[in-house]
């Protein structure tokens, strides 16, 4: 179950090398992958899996997945992204995803934080009281 150990340590080092100005650089990621292929470190699969998880987390931190239902103007997504950028102090990129199950409203996920104001979540709260 534990991810500790040398594979995790190497993955973390590779992840740090993949950052440029605090953000994931696709060029550096390519260089890291080429290095791994060339040198094939011990437990390379575990290293790559852990590396992928760290990169995914970092990408999720800099992205606002905006799930919505109903009609929302494109400028609204930009406004949400700007609000998130101000809140977190870093540039957040909006990723709109239509999700009709929400009925109406939005659900914004940035990393581990979820901001929700949808009919679906309100119905969930009502259900909890029944």
């Amino acid at each position: 179950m534990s991810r500790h150990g040398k594979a995790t340590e190497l993955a973390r080092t590779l992840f740090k090398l993949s950052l440029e100005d605090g953000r994931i650089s696709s060029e550096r990621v390519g260089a890291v992958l080429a290095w791994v292929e060339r040198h094939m470190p011990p437990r390379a699969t575990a290293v790559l899996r852990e590396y992928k998880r760290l990169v995914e987390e970092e990408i999720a931190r800099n992205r606002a997945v905006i799930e919505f239902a109903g009609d929302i103007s494109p400028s609204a997504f930009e406004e949400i992204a700007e609000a998130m950028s101000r809140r977190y102090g870093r540039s957040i990129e909006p990723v709109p995803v239509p999700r009709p199950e929400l009925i109406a409203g939005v659900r914004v996920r940035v990393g581990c934080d979820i901001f929700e104001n949808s009919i679906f979540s309100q119905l969930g709260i009502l259900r909890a009281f029944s």
Partner: protein
Amino acid sequence: MSTVLEQIEQQIARLQAGTVRKNVGTIRTVADGVALCDGLSEVMYNEMVEFPGGTIGIALNLTEDDVGCVVLGDVSGLKEGDEAKTTGRLLSVPVGKSLLGRAVDALGNPVDAKGPIEAKEFYPVEKIAPGIVVRKSVSQPLFTGIMAIDSMIPIGRGQRELIIGDRGTGKTTIAIDTIINQARINRVGLASGDPKFRPVYSIYVAVGQKNSNIVRTMSALEAAGALEYTVIVAAPAADNPANQYLAPYSGASMGEWFMENGMDALIVYDDLSKHAVAYRQISLILKRPSGREAYPGDVFYLHSRLLERAARLDGKGSLTALPIIETLAGDVSAYIPTNVISITDGQIFLETDLFNQGIRPAVSVGLSVSRVGSAAQVKATKQVAGKLKGELAQFRELAAFAQFGSDLDAKTKNQLDRGARIVELFKQPAFNPISIELQAATLWAMQNGFYDGIPMNKVAAAAASLREFFANRKDALLGKIRNKAALDAELEAELKQGCNEWKPTFSA
């Protein structure tokens, strides 16, 4: 009607029409009652984490890569990829007098099929122990009703006294007798109408025990009329280790409510050995580094922070703790026993040899100690029992010497005879606590030679007969001893008269 409308308005306000923010993570693995989660970037240590289906967990491992949550409840509904979210709350349990007479689990949910518990307050399970300034020294006695303990190893309110011994030596019996005695004293005290009387409420925490044992204990308490003053916190062996780990802390929170509201409480942890084993299991599953005997490095802190919550507070109440530890083959120098001995304010050591010899309670007077000592004894007990420990120590030395069969002088024979009579006197049946005034009468009779000449195997019966005589015919005298708590010349004269009246009624 306005209250009803207020309630409805509060419910509507709770719906929170605004944006809701939550911090979430994803379950990566679930095994052995522990869920490893990614995300949960803002989770705090010991925070409650909610899983799908309302299952609750506690975040116990916060590492760089993941969060280890111990799941309190059924893990079978959880799977990889499920969302976990923080609740922003620490684990809390219901507290208050509504818990008296009830059996609850480690989370405070009733398990006795007597309906829901209407608790108005909730206390966090983990709480910092009272500091130094708010404490007061222990000076009020807590009578166990067991003569051997009240006379030689007295316990005070706010003390931590460890009960330690091998399996089947009567540890739980001592704890139950103490609870029954508190209930008896409560009934007498409350009936007297004395405004200064302070009842003692009891909490019995069963950790890792068989369900049948817990039921037997509850039945014994109910039969003795003690259940109405007692809360039972049950975390049996069938419960998951997380609940067994939490149960003592939940019980401590319930006891702290009484303490902080100016009342006195007694809490029994039965037993902390199984508590340490449950914590070891959780720690190993969480991959925490293991130390001696595979226990985690903070196993001392596990018990020290629990037992430090028992105290006597200045201007408030007290919480007395009776932790129980089971030893193996009488080894008190093992890891967990030595840890808890160093934390508590004394120990009552029960020996298997004494138990097998028929000396029950099997208290080893030589190895037992109360660090509070006579500060927690009433004057009457000090007067009659002050020298007992020394006399028994001399008896033990001489008894070992006499085994070699050499000729003994009269003085030695007298000491051996006296010691043997004291040992017989302290034999007491289970679930039969003796009031402090009857103890004083019994020991006074012994000090003044009223058992001399009675065959050794009849001494215990003689003492029981004397107590019955005094209970039936000298109730007024017992009341005076109870109220004065000291034996003056007048009371001693009445005791002498009473014993003289009793002697002819007892046929050896």
